């Protein structure tokens, strides 16, 4: 009886390990898919926001098209940085790698 029980607990342990392994892998693939889906919109939304800010500031200071040009350039840079971050999975931290960072 004891032997049987031991055997059973061993089998249970094995199954548990197997399950958690396959689950982890699946989860990771799934998350990757989400990252790539969101990168396209990231670029556009930054440009839209900077466009709105630029037009608003130009209207406020009566300085057409100075702020619009400045903010469009900034917006484009932001979009590129955002895409870079999301693809490299740096989250929302700055897009500079730390020295001992494993992501590359």
């Amino acid at each position, binding site marked *: 009886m004891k032997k049987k029980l031991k055997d059973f607990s061993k089998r249970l342990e094995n199954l548990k390990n197997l399950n958690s392994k396959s689950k982890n892998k699946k989860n990771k693939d799934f998350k990757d898919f989400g990252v790539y889906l969101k990168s396209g919109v990231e670029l556009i939304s930054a440009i839209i*926001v900077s466009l709105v800010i630029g037009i608003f500031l130009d209207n406020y200071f009566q300085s057409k098209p100075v702020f619009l040009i400045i903010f469009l350039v900034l917006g484009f840079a932001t979009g590129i*940085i*955002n895409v870079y971050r999301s693809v490299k999975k740096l989250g929302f931290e700055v897009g*500079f790698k730390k020295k001992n960072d494993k992501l590359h």
Partner: protein
Amino acid sequence: MADPIYQFKIKELIPLEIFETNISYTNSSLFMSLSIILVSLLLLVSIKKKSLVPSRLQSVSEIFYEFIANMVSDNIGDKGHKFFPLIFTLFTFLLFGNMLGMLPYSFTFTSHIIVTFVLAMFVFLLVTLLGIFIHGFKFFGLFVPKGVPMVMLPLMIPIEIISYLSRPISLSVRLFANMMAGHTMLKIFAGFIVPLGIFGIAPLMVDVALTALEVLIAFLQAYVFTILTCLYLNEAINLH
């Protein structure tokens, strides 16, 4: 051919006007209510008979619960449990909205940008106010990136601010664009089936494949919306 955009038309079911503002009960509102009612029904019915070995319905709601609970604890940590109801509601509301939209003759309320934008704006305002409330002035340290040379700061701070402000836009546009584009594409291919006669089998096959893809997208977009909400909340609460 049927108009592929017609499916997104808002129809007033119960016209209502208060102070010259149109607040009619539309087909969009109908499906929002339907989504909420279905989620509530599912949860209420499934936990009525609590058993150790769950029935099918009970395991569905348990899966929902565990999925969101894991998401919250993985992304926010212990402090995030207060926000579990919010995140759970957001996810189930969007998921049921997207999935209801996959049924024939139904309406997808997430395919209107104003709906998704209001949801995203709510998340954005919540996160900003929460961050300021918890961390005070320190919260604006978010805009000063770590490890950047001083010379670059005048350039990096505006970039960080634009990046922060672009969140509600990217959050809402992603969901709206995916849902609208998918449904339009389905309709366009469906419009080719009958006019092509025997060759209509080709667009029919495409439509079958697209339907499967759309179900995946419907789930994935609800998931992405909620996981990004989690990440934003994490940033506001824990402030790296």
